[in-house]
């Protein structure tokens, strides 16, 4: 069947209508596919959330034991003021007090600038660990003075004292006089570690 020009013109309408119907159909398919993809994504998210919550619920007994075990440590950290902002004045007081109590002959120290040691992601906030390095120079009569100094420092709290370096050297022979002259010298580097819990209730 061959068409005249007039007939071709009369075919335009139906062809356009058919194309429009087809386009509508394709649009429907596209919209439905889009909706299905979106629904599939929603389902996957919901499924993952449900799985996570269920697993967490299944682990709750273990978590309870863990919390009970860790809460004591946490409270102890808080009690010792390791948890919270650093307390430099308390550190200075503690060093002075130890020197006086232990009758140390010479004690010099420098506390350096605080630095971030590590940061752990928690929920709802991070837990940041900071360290301030204290360099201590001690004149000792006996090596036990160093051990006592370190023990006293730990007892004083206000930070966790992580000794990085400690060196003991002889300063010379003991003089025959009755005056107390240091025979040893100790140089230590101690990290004063504190932690800040950003998720803690104010």
């Amino acid at each position, binding site marked *: *069947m061959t068409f005249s020009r007039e*007939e071709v013109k*009369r075919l335009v309408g*139906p*062809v356009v*209508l*058919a194309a*429009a*119907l*087809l386009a509508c*159909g*394709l649009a429907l*398919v596209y*919209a*439905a*596919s889009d*909706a*299905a993809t979106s*629904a*599939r994504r*929603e*389902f996957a998210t*919901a*499924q993952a*959330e*449900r799985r*996570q919550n*269920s697993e967490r*619920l299944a682990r709750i007994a273990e978590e*309870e034991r863990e*919390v009970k075990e*860790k809460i004591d*440590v*946490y409270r102890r*950290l*808080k009690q010792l003021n390791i*948890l919270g902002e650093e307390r430099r004045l308390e550190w200075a007081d503690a060093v002075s007090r130890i020197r006086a109590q232990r009758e140390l002959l010479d004690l010099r120290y420098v506390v350096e600038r605080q630095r971030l040691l*590590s940061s*752990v*992601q*928690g929920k709802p*906030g991070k*837990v940041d*660990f900071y360290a301030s390095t204290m360099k201590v120079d001690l004149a000792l009569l006996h090596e036990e003075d160093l*051990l006592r100094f*370190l023990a006293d420092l730990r007892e004083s709290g206000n930070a*966790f004292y*992580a*000794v990085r*370096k*400690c*060196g*003991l*050297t*002889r300063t010379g022979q003991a003089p025959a006089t009755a005056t107390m002259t240091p025979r040893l010298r100790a140089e230590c580097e101690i990290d004063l*570690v504190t*932690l800040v*819990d950003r*998720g*803690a209730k104010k």
Partner: protein
Amino acid sequence: MAGSYALYFTAAGHSLYRAERQGLERVAQFSADDAGLETFREHLRGEPGALLAVLADVTGEDFHEEHIPHVRGADRQALLSRKLAQRYRDVRLAAALPLGVVAGPERRNERVLLASFTNTQQLAHWLDALDEAGARLAGVYSAPLLAPALAAKLGARQERLLLVSVNRAGLRQCYLERGRLRFARLEPTVDLAPQALAGFVRSETQRLVQYLMTLRALPRDAGPVQVLVIAPPGARAAFEQALHSDTRLVFRTLDNGDALKALKLRRVPADTAAEALYLHLAAGTPPREQFATREERRRYRFWQLQRRIVAAGATALCACALVAGSRWLDASTLREQAAEELVRAQSAAAEYARITSTFPVTETSTENLKAAVVEFRRIAERSAPPERAFLHVSRVLQRYPQFELDSLRWSIASAAEQRDAALKGVAVDAQPDALMLIELSGRVSATQRSDYRGITAQVQQFAAALMREGYEIVRTQLPFDVTSEGVLSGDIGAASDGGEAPRFTVVLGRKLP
């Protein structure tokens, strides 16, 4: 419906019907003369582009069986055209109806029934009028052409069947062989009482059967012929009384009303006879075979093409809608499942919250609590106090009084120191702060400075004694160099060892947990 209108064409006059899905409505009647034709033209002017089928119910039909070679496509068309041209002077209204294939001794042949009108002119003017008016001619049918479809609708599927109906044009008799038209005739009638009409039907049927036997169209030994008679309204009883079966004819009478029901034709004009059945078929479900030429049906075919294009679009839309519906259904199911999962997740979270509310009261969240303690413990484990190391060294020194320490340096190894230690065979983790180092420097007394072997043995014993509780030797430095790369000197036989005691250095390492 194929046509909106159907023109019933008879020798006495013509009627135009509006065809509906379940009804026929007569809209005009035209006389069979020129005046009627002019009225028809007038009517068509008011219906430009009308869709129309013509049903010719006239006498003077010709049916002739031919055998042609069994070919297809254009060859068949050319062969049929030639046969029609040979048979009829005017082929404008001629058709070849297939009757089936017969296998001959040499080749396969096709039986065809050539059909036309002996007087095509009576129709030609009316068809011209349709063409002039731009009407869409669906086809020109004769009542016999529609008989096979009518018989099928009425449930008559016998191998040989005579379908007899009383039309307005007269008594129409169609002989069908295996559901295909083989012969037909129209016998004009006058108004007769039902009994007389029934008698007329019987006698005409017997005459036709006799004629068909003469033509050998109906085998003599084929048994009785089934005759389906559509009785006019109210005449069935009289027909059944008159039309009793015998050895040659088996009559079955059907009321015109029942026939209308079988065709689902509910509304017909009151004075319409059995032609309504043929008109309904012509307008609704016409057969392929008809008399009009392709050119005469061009407008109709073009109109069909337009509809098919739109129908294709609509079909595509429906298919897409089905696919979309299926996907939407999937999406809906997934959303429902997602909602159920969310409910379960929330329920688990609520249960978790309920249980954790019984946990000891903390000033932080469980996650932060765990994070803080775990990380603190890690730092603490990597922060070994030096006291134990001092104690270890002190215990060993007690067993080696000849060793005097000048310095003791304890440290957590730096990254470089760890690398050095690893090179010297100390197993160290890749993590920082994994190794503790103790550097001992001192002198060995009570041994002659020149006794290299003795000093070496003592330092090695001392170092070996230190290698306990996880400590490993990282480096040992003797008072002299016994390696091949160094210089070894001595002063044997001197009066006394005037110099100071020989110095040594031992570096120990211990892996932190």
